[in-house]
Structure formats: structure tokens, C-alpha cells
């Protein structure tokens, strides 16, 4: 008996990694994230091609040494750039998403590896890189390149455990970015809790001066409050993985607020992590929501003409949506 209970518990723990989530969420994430990669290459990790021109400061990171990746040159960084742009554009349309996705994942990883090979490593790309590696593992329902598709991938409510696993991996990586930051802060002060009451933000502002930060320098207690809120939030971040519905939204808004504050004080935006918060959002409901609005807009006029209330199909539709929402909430 207890062995059986144990077994179902293990089963449930394993199932947590593969919730059934609608394929539409994957389709939305593909479009958003592959387009984001193009933005990223021009706005954030944008010095990769420059490093190809001046490889003098190149210090290859572990992964680059492990796979014996060639030193950046004008030829290979330009090729990388063109391949990434083309593959991202194709993948963002949800056409040939696996083929294009398997090209983007290693190519962008290499792009970022080069970008961070000058002695300075940023920590805002974990979730995005993980997302690019897991998205191609999800098979779309339409195979190959068909221009007219029976069902739009953005509306596809077919739930899939493979999709759920990919989503879960992105969610875990987003949360890991915060939780592991707290671990690094404990480690950085010799495994003590010295960080939140230290002068770290004062140090950061003095080194990245700008008006909001400089005003805060006169009020060190506010900086200490922020440090405590930050590290406690980071330590508690894994809770967000198990929150549902509105509570999860609140959790997400807390961390997005955290980034807004960081941007205001230090001009550090972490957008590559922020965009991956969308893995928590029920994007699969976008199309049904618009369809419902559109159809209720037209049926409202019919209703007022007939002088009747809501139609019976509506209630059933809502019940079905609520059921789906319940199944997918938190997933």
C-alpha cells in the first residue's frame, strides 16, 4: 500500500515536468522569441561581429574550448549573423519550426558565447538560450511547409506533454536566474547574509552614475531596503512555479517591477529574461478571446434586436474555457 502511494507520488513528481499545455502557447513563444533574438543581436549582444573584426581580446569560455570553436573572424561572425537572421525569420512564422529552431539554438549559443568572451559575462541570457534549445523539441501538428493550414498554430488548443515540458524548462530557467542570483550573493559574501546590508548598491550607482541613482545615494537606507526585498524575493522565487492564476500573475509582476527598479537605478534591464516570463502566460487563450469578443460583438446586436439574453452556447463555452484554464493554470 505505502509502496503504491510512494509510486504515485514519484509519478506525480515526474508528471510535474510534463504538464499538458496547448500547442498554441508554443506557437506564440516561437514567434515572439525568434523575433526577440533578432532584436537581441542588434541591441544587447551586439558586439559579436565587432569581435570578429578585432579578435585580440578574445578569451574563449569553457564551452568554446570544449567544442574547439574557431576564433571569431569577419567571415565566421558574418556567416553566423546571416544564418541567424534567416533561420529566426523562418522559425518566427512557425513554418519549418523544428529545422529552423535546431539551427538557431546552436548558432545563437555561439553568438552569445563570442559576445561574452572578453572577460565580462552577463547573466540575463540563461532562460532565452534554454528556450531556444527546447522549442525545437516540440513537433508542430502541421508537418512541412504548407502555406494554407487547416488550423492556425496560434489557435491550436491541442494539449501536448512535449509542449508542457518545453514550457516548464523555460519557466525553471527564468526562476533559476533569480534563485541562483541569491545563491551567488550568499557565496559572494563567504556564505553569510552580509550582502543585503552591505553598500553594494551604493557601489553600483557610483560606478554607473545617473540622476535617479545619484538621488538615492543620499538615502542609503532605501538602498538597504531594496537589497533586502531583492534577496528575499530571489530566495522565494521558486514559489512562483507552483502558484496558480492570479497569484502567479502577482509573482510575475513583482519580478517585472524588480527589473523596472533595476533599470531605473542601474540601467540594467534584463530584457532577455523578462521576455521569457511569457512562458508563464496563457498565450493560447489569445485567439479564443479575440474570437469570442468578435462573435459576441456581432451577436450582441442580434440579441438586442431579438430582445433576448445570452445564448445557451455561451455558458457551455465558458464552462469549457474554465476547465481548460484550470488544467493549464500554473502550467
Amino acid at each position, binding site marked *: 500500500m505505502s509502496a503504491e502511494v510512494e509510486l504515485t507520488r514519484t509519478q506525480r513528481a*515526474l508528471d510535474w*515536468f*510534463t504538464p*499538458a499545455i496547448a500547442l498554441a502557447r508554443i506557437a506564440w513563444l516561437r514567434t515572439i522569441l525568434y523575433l526577440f533574438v533578432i532584436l537581441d543581436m542588434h541591441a544587447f549582444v551586439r*558586439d559579436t561581429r*565587432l569581435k570578429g573584426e578585432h579578435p585580440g*581580446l578574445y578569451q574563449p*569560455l*569553457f*564551452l568554446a574550448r570544449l567544442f574547439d570553436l574557431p576564433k571569431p573572424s569577419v567571415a565566421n561572425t558574418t556567416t553566423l549573423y546571416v544564418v541567424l537572421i534567416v533561420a529566426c525569420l523562418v522559425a518566427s512564422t512557425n513554418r519549418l519550426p523544428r529545422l529552423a529552431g535546431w539551427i538557431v539554438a546552436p548558432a545563437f*549559443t555561439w553568438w552569445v558565447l563570442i559576445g*561574452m568572451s*572578453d*572577460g*565580462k*559575462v*552577463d*547573466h540575463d*541570457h*540563461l532562460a532565452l*538560450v*534554454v528556450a531556444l534549445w527546447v522549442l525545437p*523539441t516540440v513537433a508542430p501538428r502541421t508537418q512541412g511547409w504548407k502555406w494554407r493550414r487547416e488550423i492556425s498554430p496560434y489557435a491550436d*488548443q*491541442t*494539449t*501536448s*506533454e*512535449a509542449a508542457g*515540458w518545453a514550457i*516548464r*524548462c523555460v519557466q*525553471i530557467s527564468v526562476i*533559476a*536566474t533569480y534563485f*541562483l*542570483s541569491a*545563491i*551567488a*550573493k550568499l*557565496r*559572494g*559574501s563567504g556564505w*553569510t547574509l*552580509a*550582502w543585503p546590508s*552591505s*553598500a*553594494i548598491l*551604493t*557601489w*553600483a550607482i*557610483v*560606478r554607473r552614475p545617473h540622476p535617479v541613482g545619484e538621488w538615492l*545615494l543620499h538615502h*542609503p537606507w532605501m538602498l538597504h531596503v531594496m537589497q533586502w526585498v531583492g534577496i528575499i524575493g530571489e530566495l522565494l522565487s521558486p514559489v512562483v512555479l507552483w502558484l496558480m492564476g492570479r497569484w502567479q500573475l502577482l509573482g510575475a509582476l513583482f519580478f517585472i517591477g524588480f527589473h523596472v527598479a533595476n533599470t531605473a537605478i542601474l540601467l*540594467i534591464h534584463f530584457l532577455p529574461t523578462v521576455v521569457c516570463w511569457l512562458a508563464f502566460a496563457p498565450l493560447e487563450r489569445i485567439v479564443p478571446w479575440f474570437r469570442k469578443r468578435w462573435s459576441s460583438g456581432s451577436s450582441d446586436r442580434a440579441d438586442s434586436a431579438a430582445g433576448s439574453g445570452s445564448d445557451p452556447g455561451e455558458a457551455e463555452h465558458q464552462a*469549457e474555457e474554465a*476547465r*481548460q484554464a484550470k488544467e493549464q493554470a500554473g502550467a
Partner: protein
Amino acid sequence: MCNGGVTSIRLGRVGKAVRVFVALAGIGLLINGSVHATDDAWPFGPMSQYAGAVADDASITYTRISAQTDAGTTVDVPLNIEGAGVARAEIEARTGEIVADPSLLQAVADGWARKHPDQPKYVKLELIRDTTTLVKGRVEGPPRPEVLATWQVR
């Protein structure tokens, strides 16, 4: 499998086992990186940006390059890709080399001139380290500048 009109695609035993294993291995690598590794292990290294504790009496240094232009003005060189084509982190990492060989600053002047041909040229560059010393965790007074290297642009 089909329920309530919504199709559901499930994973096979192997597909599921492999995925759970990969997820757990990834989490393991991340935790290991945070506890033991350095930035070298990216993306599995520690999230160490701003993770150090700074003492209440710490000296905070800030390295910048000040330029005299042919228009007779003195400006701080914008140390980023759009500015002089070199990042502050790179200058800070190579301060020792620049002090030993100030001619390395020529690249900064060249970078600026190439990217901003219509702006005043740099005629003299100074590598300056500003030191702010904290008193009980507060910034007291302006930073103390110290010229580390000077270069007459060619």
C-alpha cells in the same frame, strides 16, 4: 487521446524519461555552477553580477577617459560601442597594460574619429581613476581623480 473536444498528445515512456532526465541534469549543472564554478562555465556559471558584499568603508574606483578636443573642450569619452567602439569593462580590464603603454589609447581616439567624423577630434587623452571612499556606507564628498596615463593623439 480526446476529451471534451480537445485533443491531447501524450509522451511515450522513453520520451518522458529522457525529458525528465535532461531537466534534472540541467538543474544539477546549474546548482553545481552556482556553488563551485566561475563565469567561465557560462551558461552554467554562477549569477554573480553584483553578488559581492561591499564594506561600509570601501573605496570605489571608476575608470574613465577624459579627452581634450580640437574644439578646445574637455569631455568624457563615451566608453561603449557607439561612442569610441570600446567598452568601459575592457578599459578597466586592461588598465595595467594602458599605464605601461599609453599608446594603446590611440585606438580610442581612432575609434571615435572613425565613428564620428563630423565631431571634434580628440587631441589629448587621459586615463583617469576616480576614487570615492565610503564613510559608514555613505558617499562623502566628490570623487578623488588620479591621472593614470596621458596620451598625445597622433
